[in-house]
Each structure stands twice: as structure tokens, then as C-alpha cells.
């Protein structure tokens, strides 16, 4: 069952064509890797899906609906969540609060309920806090729950970014270079974690990544971009032996 379909998506910034007619599909529960040299348009694709950018052309269908109808703040409620290349944790907030924000879109309570502590607020808040702490525990960050996000190490912030994204209980998870800067062991841990997440939550994952061993071992399928165009779409094995891909990307390694 296709959960996400990009159809001839093009994105232009002024005179620069960042993405040019890219199409691909994702089936529910798949892990798809999105690779390509720097500037190939990978993060732009993620940004279009999360509605930060508007495409100049093309359609995106998510769970059968036209995704382009939605505002950036509405995609969380649809079950889409992401991590960021530049991390973008909430640096002034406590770690646990960062994770709580992840679950923001599922809050029923409104301003009055919060300001006046109407019945129902406390229960929801306590429940979400419990869930957040348990999420931190699963990622090994519970000792840092009350620390300020800016005081965490780079690797810990990456994990926090992931914890926050997972806390939104997404159906579609977009990861932007989650293994950047990780050691081999950390990469392996991340891979196992993501496989476990996919198992447990039945979540579909789109991973933008440069760390080749990770992408190859993790993905069911890989889509390759170069200069904003899709140049390949296949299994890791197929991609590894694709001449054009090797030339554009792997060969330059």
C-alpha cells in the first residue's frame, strides 16, 4: 500500500533549480534511503514534504490525499515527523520538554485549559510527560532529562532530535542525515534502533544520508538524486552496481 507518492516534483529558488521532476513512491512500512552528492536536492525534498517549501510543479499524495493542501503546522497531525540536518533542537528548553513538544500536535487541551488548569489538563500533561521520559529512557538519555538541550553533546543532540520526532508517533518519519558524525558503533546502534522502531510502530521511514554503510544496510530501497534529478531507484544491490550512480556519487568518494 503506497503511503507517499511524489509525482514530478520541481522546486526552484529564484533562478536555481533545486529539484527537477523527481518522482518516487513509498510503501507503508518501507525504509527508503535518499542519497546523492551534496546539493543534489535531498533536503529540499524533505522540506517540500513538510511543506516548508512550495514546489513549482508536481504533486504529492500522502495516504491518498493531496499533501500540498496543508500548511507546515498541519503535517504533524497527519502523522509526518522529521529530524533535521542542523539538528534544530530547542536549545533553551530542557531535554524532556523538547520531547514533549514532539507530542504537541496530539494535545487536546487549549489555552484556557492550560491557563486555568481546568480538569483534564493535568491528566493529559502527566501522561505525556511519562511517555516522554520513557522515550528518553529507550534512547539512553534519561539521565539528561532536566538538562538544557544546548548543554548536550553533538551525538546526544542528534538522539534528542530523533526522540522528539518519534514522540510525535509518526506514520511517516523523515530523517535528515541522522548518522552524521557518528562512529561505526553508533551507526550500528542507530540502524538497529530504526529497524526496531519500524517494527514496533509500523512507521515508514525516508532517510537522507551520506554514511553509505548505514544506508545500504538499512534501506529496503534507495532513490538516488543528482543535480535535482532522480537518476536511480532500486534495491541497495542494484544501486551499488548502477554505473550512473557510481559515476555521479560513489565514484567521487
Amino acid at each position: 500500500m503506497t503511503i507517499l507518492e511524489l509525482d514530478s516534483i520541481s522546486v526552484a529558488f529564484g533562478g536555481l533549480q533545486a529539484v527537477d521532476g523527481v518522482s518516487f513512491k513509498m510503501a507503508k512500512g518501507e525504509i527508503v534511503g535518499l542519497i546523492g552528492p551534496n546539493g543534489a536536492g535531498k533536503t529540499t525534498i524533505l522540506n517540500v514534504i513538510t511543506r516548508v517549501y512550495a514546489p513549482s510543479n508536481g504533486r504529492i499524495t500522502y495516504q491518498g490525499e493531496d499533501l500540498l493542501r496543508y500548511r507546515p503546522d498541519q503535517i504533524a497531525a497527519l502523522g509526518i515527523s522529521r529530524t533535521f540536518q542542523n539538528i534544530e533542537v530547542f536549545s533553551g528548553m530542557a531535554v524532556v520538554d523538547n520531547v514533549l513538544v514532539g507530542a504537541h500536535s496530539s494535545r487536546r487541551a487549549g489555552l484556557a485549559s492550560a491557563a486555568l488548569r481546568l480538569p483534564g489538563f493535568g491528566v493529559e500533561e502527566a501522561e505525556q510527560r511519562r511517555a516522554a521520559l520513557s522515550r528518553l529512557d529507550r534512547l539512553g538519555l534519561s539521565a539528561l532529562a532536566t538538562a538544557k538541550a544546548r548543554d548536550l553533546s553533538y551525538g546526544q543532540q542528534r538522539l534528542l532530535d530523533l526522540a522528539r520526532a518519534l514522540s510525535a508517533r509518526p506514520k511517516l518519519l523523515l530523517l535528515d542525515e541522522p548518522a552524521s558524525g557518528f562512529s561505526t558503533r553508533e551507526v550500528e546502534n542507530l540502524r538497529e534502533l530504526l529497524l526496531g522502531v519500524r517494527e514496533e510502530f509500523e512507521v515508514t521511514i525516508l532517510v537522507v544520508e551520506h554514511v553509505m554503510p548505514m544506508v545500504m544496510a538499512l534501506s529496503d530501497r534507495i532513490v538516488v538524486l543528482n543535480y535535482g534529478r532522480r537518476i536511480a531507484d532500486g534495491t541497495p544491490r542494484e544501486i551499488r552496481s548502477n554505473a550512473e550512480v557510481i559515476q555521479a556519487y560513489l565514484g567521487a568518494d
Partner: protein
Amino acid sequence: MELFLQILVQSITHGSIYALIGVGLVLIFRATDLINFAQGQLVMIGAYISITLSVSVGLPVVLSFILTLLIVAVIGAAIEYSVCRRLMRAPIMNTIIATFALGVILQNAVILIYGPEVYSMPSYLPSHPIALGGVIVSVQSMFIVGVTIIVMISLFLFLGRTKQGRAMQGAAENRVAAALMGISVKRVFARSWMLSGFLSALAGQLLAPVLLVEPNMGIIAIKSFSAAIIGGFGLPATVVGGYLVSLLENLVGVYLTVALKDAAAFLVIVLVLLAKPEGLFTRQIRRRV
């Protein structure tokens, strides 16, 4: 028709002042990525120092004029060194608050030293107005416009043709690249503040004979903020902005009511920021995630 020409003359005169102050604002912004909310107070200080030197100390006019320019330039550099440099890595809000507080300090220091009364700067030019083709123009007006033109041309030559000048325009955009290219970022900062101080003192001294010299005269800088916003903080565009703001407020003052004259500048700020915050003459900049 005559009325319109008179308005035009008035607009060009005041517009020159707004342009001078506005350019000072933009220089600091383009070099240090900081908006100096105390710019108006630097103008005010220029006027006060000028009066002190020429009236109280009794220096000859030309000497006190030039000395004032130098003194305020040095004050500008002192501010950069003691305040701005310490805030280089602070969040934007802190730098805004800092220059704002600086303005408060300068204004109240002046009130303490000189008292809250108003001063009148004796005119250093012949005061009889001249008739130019049906329009009355004061010598002071011509002086203001003349000096502005000369200063602007020199400034643009300096910024466009010299290495230091070009450095001042680029440093804010990419400090690291600038530093790597051998440009001393600190020197660029200091120079931009000095130039800005120079321009403010110039504006203050050009204004002093025309307006009353009082601690609150720095409020005129809001017009220059308007100009800079219209110009998107770009250099020639801000100059144009200064004249536009002046024209607009004079038109409002004459054809609507005088009370709304000041409001015109505020309205411009709010409208431009709402419609096209990057200025009327610039292209949009986007942040990439």
C-alpha cells in the same frame, strides 16, 4: 505649483539629513549586522558638542565643525570597542537592548550636563533667504544639500573603490570569509562606527541652526529608520528612501494636517515592514534548513 516647489525644496533639505543619518545606520548594519538604536543620540551629541565648542569655548566655526566630527567619530569607535565587541556572540535581542540603553544613557547624560533647556545654535551662514525661480531657499538649505551631495559622493567612492570600503560592505554577511581574506574584522567594525559617528555629527551640525537643540532631537532618527527600511538597508537605496520619506511627510503635513506629519514616518515603517520587509528595492532572502 509654487507651493509644490516649496514643498520640494523642503523635502530635499530634510531628506538630505535623513539620508545622512540613514547611511550611518546602514554602514553599521552592513558591517556588524547590528542596528544602532542610539543613532539619533549621536546626532544630538554632535549638535551639543558643536555648540559647546563654538559658543562656550569660542573656537572658530570651521575648527569647531571639524573637531566635532572627529570627536563623535571617536565616540562611535569607543562604543564599538566597549559595547558591541563584547556582544558579538550574544543573541540579537541583547544587542538591540544594548544600543537602546546606550541611547537612553547618552540622552540623560546630556540632560544632566546641559540641563533640559533648549539651546539655539547661532547660524554660521548668512541668513537671508535667496529666491530661486519663484521659490524661497535659505542659504542653510543649500549648504545642507551641497554638503550632503559632496559627502555622499566621497563616501560611495570610498566604499566602492577602496579595499577597506568594500570590506565594510561585506564583512557582516560573512565574517569568517572576510577574516580568511585577511580583512581585520575588528578594524572594519571600528571604521564603520567611526564613519557613522562622523555622519551623525555632520547631520547634527547641519540641523542645529535650523532646529532647536534639545536632548530629544535625536528622535529624528526614526525618519532615518524609515528610510533604511524602505531602502532595505542597501546604500544608495537608503539615500533615495530618505528623500522619499521627507517628501511624503511634507506632503502629508501640507495637504492633510501637521499633526500627522510625524505619523507618516511611522506609517511607512509599519506598511513597508508588512508588505515588503526586505525593502522596496531588494530581492527576498531565505534561510535554508
